[in-house]
């Protein structure tokens, strides 16, 4: 079973040389820590920066330079700042190659729910609806089940939808799944997790073809 860093490590392997990547808040943010150092990747944050670097050293924070999570950041050579309209031109115009998001639920057909729980305080969708409606390559980072053990990988989302039919791949604490027209195809098992355990934790249609390898996240 993977912890949050494990999920981030596995997703980092999906980040390819030359990719512009938008990372959501939470586990996705951790992905930046694990991207191979021999490839070139640029991180976009929808509040208006391309070419984000690591967090600043103490004392070097600049209130005018933050990411979408409102954290102080730095920029790398080649970075640029821009306004919100141009930022979403990048997103809506499909110039961002990979979007990594957290989710509360994902359904068989790739619907995602990650912005609202009825009855709870709703903070808003931020840029998530724009991202999921536009991105052609969306990977979701999430726990396979909720705290009560119920599956979050569903036939149909029960929570209000963020976007329809948009998720391509899911990396959970238990498995890597591809979203296919037939359902969730099991691609890899987390270390020490059996196919049976994944089956039990998945409410949506799970497709198992041949031997399922254990994932490598070294």
């Amino acid at each position, binding site marked *: 079973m993977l912890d949050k860093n494990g999920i981030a490590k596995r997703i980092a392997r999906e980040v390819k040389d030359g990719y512009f990547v938008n990372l959501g808040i939470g586990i996705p943010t951790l992905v930046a820590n694990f991207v191979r150092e021999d490839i070139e990747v640029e991180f976009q*944050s929808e509040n208006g920066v391309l070419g984000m670097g690591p967090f600043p050293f103490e004392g070097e924070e600049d*209130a005018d330079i933050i990411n*979408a999570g409102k954290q102080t950041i730095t920029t790398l050579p080649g970075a640029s700042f821009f306004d919100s309209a141009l930022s979403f031109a990048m997103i809506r115009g499909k110039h961002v190659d990979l979007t990594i998001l957290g989710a509360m639920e994902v359904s068989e057909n790739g619907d995602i729910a990650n912005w609202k729980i009825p009855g709870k305080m709703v903070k808003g969708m931020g840029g998530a609806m724009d991202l999921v409606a536009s991105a052609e390559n969306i990977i979701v980072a999430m726990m396979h089940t909720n705290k009560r053990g119920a599956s979050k990988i569903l036939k149909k989302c029960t929570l209000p939808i*963020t976007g*329809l039919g948009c998720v391509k791949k899911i990396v959970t604490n238990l498995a890597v799944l591809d979203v296919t027209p037939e359902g969730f195809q099991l691609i890899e098992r987390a270390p020490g997790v059996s196919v049976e355990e994944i089956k039990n934790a998945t409410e949506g249609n799970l497709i198992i073809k041949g031997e399922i390898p254990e994932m490598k996240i070294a």
Partner: protein
Amino acid sequence: MINKKINSVEEAVAGVTDNMTLMLGGFGLCGIPENAIAELVKLGAKNLTCISNNAGVDDFGLGLLLQQRQIKKMISSYVGENDEFERQMLSGELDVELTPQGTLAEKCRAAQAGFPAFYTPAGYGTEVAEGKESREFNGKMYILEKAFEADFAFVKAWKGDEAGNLIFKGTARNFNPCMCGAAKITVAEVEELVPAGELDPNQIHIPGIFVQRIFQGAHYEKRIEQRTVRQR
């Protein structure tokens, strides 16, 4: 050169009255019009509709207007980090219209640029699309979103000149440029106001034609919401 300079923050908010719709730049507490907000609190105008990506924190940014119960409705993409906001929303005192962030930016830009409406894929198939037209283009579904209509836009820039030209810094740019000229009157506050001719005409982010009033803010706190650092 048409001079847009005003000499006091009182002039900045002159004309703001109850029931108006205001746009306010900023993302979180980054790049917000601190001086105009403080003066709007003093002015006391009530029943305001505020278009702003976020709603500040309890004791800063738009949170200050919320404390005084001056806001009737917020149009935002994300409204966390604010207990008073939550209380007013849950009690029904405050109306909240959540809008996808890119749609929010484009509704400003549409108003600025004279487009009445636009089609965006964001929100199709979700609650956001309820009551809105949808339409297919090239096999993909889009919803029709309308341009905002606002009375005042309050924006904050880094540098400006007396002609109203603006230059922003870092991610404090965010929604500020999109809001310039998107309301009937745009009021810009800047950290440094210089005479016309001192800014490079190639490097102006927002030309002065989009700005009706400009002033140098007396003080900027520039509070950091999530101070995050790494070890040396």
